[in-house]
C-alpha cells in the first residue's frame, strides 16, 4: 500500500464536524418531528432494533448454506433470488429485486455502488462503512484485482476472470461464494457459521474451518 501512502485517508479520523454537534442537530430534528407528530419514537426504536438485531449478514449466510447443501435451492437462488430467499422468510426493503452471482474457480464476482451505497439489506443488513466511503467506491471498478489484493488481502490467480457489478439501478447484487473444501460433513448451520459478509460482497473467499481443509 506504499503507492497510496501519499493520499491521506479521506474518512476515519478526519471528520471536521464534531460528533457532539451532529448529535445536537439529530436530536433537534427528532424533537421537531416528534412535536409535529411526523415520527414516533417507538417507530424509530423498532426500526433501529430490527436492523441492529434481526436483519444482518447471518440471513445471507443462511441462504448461502442452504444453496451449498441443496442443488435445487441453489438453482432457484441463481435464477430467481427473491423466490429462493422468500422460502426462508427473507426479503424486504432494498432487496425487492435481488440477483445472486455465483463465484467459481474461473469467475470472481464483486459488488460495488459507485454512486451511493446500494446494498442488499434483507440478506446483508446495513452496509459497513468501508462499503459506503469513497475509497472502495472509487477503485473497485477501475482496479479490482489490485484493490482485492492490497485492501482485502485476496490474491486472485491471473486466470480468474473478475466481474464487477456496479449497483447503479434497482437490482441488488450479492455473491454466492465458493464452498470451501473439507466441509462435506457439515450441517447447514455449521456451514452458515463460515460465511462472512465480505464473502457475500465478493471481497473475500469463505475459509475452510480450522483443522480441516
Amino acid at each position, binding site marked *: 500500500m506504499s503507492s*497510496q501512502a*501519499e*493520499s491521506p485517508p*479521506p474518512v*476515519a479520523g478526519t*471528520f*471536521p464536524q464534531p460528533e457532539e*454537534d*451532529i448529535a*445536537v*442537530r*439529530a*436530536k*433537534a*430534528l427528532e*424533537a*421537531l*418531528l*416528534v412535536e*409535529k407528530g*411526523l*415520527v*414516533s*419514537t*417507538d*417507530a*424509530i426504536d423498532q*426500526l433501529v432494533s430490527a436492523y441492529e438485531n434481526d*436483519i*444482518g449478514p447471518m440471513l445471507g449466510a443462511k441462504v448461502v448454506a442452504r444453496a451449498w447443501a441443496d442443488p435445487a435451492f441453489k438453482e432457484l437462488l441463481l435464477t430467481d433470488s427473491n423466490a429462493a430467499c422468500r422460502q426462508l422468510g427473507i*426479503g424486504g*426493503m432494498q432487496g425487492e*429485486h435481488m440477483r445472486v452471482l455465483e463465484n467459481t474457480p474461473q469467475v470472481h464476482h464483486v459488488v460495488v455502488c459507485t*454512486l451511493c451505497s446500494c446494498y442488499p439489506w434483507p440478506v446483508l*443488513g446495513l452496509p*459497513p*462503512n*468501508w462499503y*459506503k466511503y*469513497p*475509497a472502495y*467506491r*472509487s*477503485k473497485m*471498478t*477501475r482496479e479490482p*484485482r489490485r484493490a482485492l489484493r492490497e*485492501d*482485502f488481502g485476496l490474491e486472485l490467480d*491471473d486466470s*480468474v476472470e*473478475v*466481474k*464487477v*457489478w*456496479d449497483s*447503479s*439501478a*434497482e*437490482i441488488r447484487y450479492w455473491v454466492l461464494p465458493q464452498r470451501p473444501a473439507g466441509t462435506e460433513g457439515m450441517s447447514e448451520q455449521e456451514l452458515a457459521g463460515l460465511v462472512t459478509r465480505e464473502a457475500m460482497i465478493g471481497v473475500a473467499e469463505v475459509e475452510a474451518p480450522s483443522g480441516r481443509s
Partner: protein
Amino acid sequence: MRRRAAEPEPGCRWAAEGVGPVDGVHDLGGVQGLGAVEREENEPVFHSDWERRVFGMMLATLGQGSYNLDEFRHAIERMNPVDYLSSRYYEHWLHSMQANLIAHGVISAEEVAEKAAQVRRDPGAAVPTRADPELASTLLGLARQGASTAMETDASPRFAAGDKVRTRNIHPPGHTRLPRYVRGRAGVVDHVYPSFVFPDTNAHRRGEHPQHVYSVRFPASELWGEDAEPGEEIYVDLWESYLEPA
C-alpha cells in the same frame, strides 16, 4: 454554487433545492487518490446513538412519503463536495433528510435552528417520547415487505440481450444514475430487466416515467484503455434512455 440563504446549523451546507451540480463529487467510479479502504474489526451496525436516530427518522419520513428515495439521493449529491468527502455516512442522511423536509415545507430552516439552539441550552433534556404503534407497525411492515419501484410501461424493451449499445454522452442537469465513467462507452446488453421508475425525473418530481433497465457489460479496456487490468468486465445497470444502438 447556489446556497441556501440560511444555514440552519454550522456545517450544514447544501446547494439550493432543485437542480444540483451536473457532475457531482458523489460519482466516484474510477477516481484515484482516495486512499486505502479502511476496515473496522467487528464493526457495529451503528457507531453512536445519533446514527440510530437519523437512520430511524429517515425510514420513517421516507416511508410516509415526505420525499422519495431519488430526491433523498439527489440532496446528498447537492452537498458541498468538501463536506461530502469529509463527513460521516449518516451525516449525509441527516443533511438530505433535513434538506428535503425543508424544501417540501414540512419543517422550516428557522424551526430547525431554533430547536437546535434550545437543545444546546439544555443538553440534558430528553427528546419527548411519542408512541404510535400503528405507525411503527406500518414502517416495520415496509422494511419487511419492501417497496419496489418496478412499474409497468406500454413500451416494449428497445434492446435485447446480446445487443451492442453505446451509452449517451450526456450531462443532464440534476440527478442521474448514468455514472460518468461509462458515458459514451460501448458495451453489450447482458440482461434485460423490468421497467422501473426513472430517477432522473422522479428526483425532481417531474414524474415516474418508467423505462426498461439493462445490465450492460463493458470490457475494462473500453473504460480504462491500456491501463485496464486484464480479464475484467464491469456490469452497470442502465435505464433505456441512457443507451443508443452501437
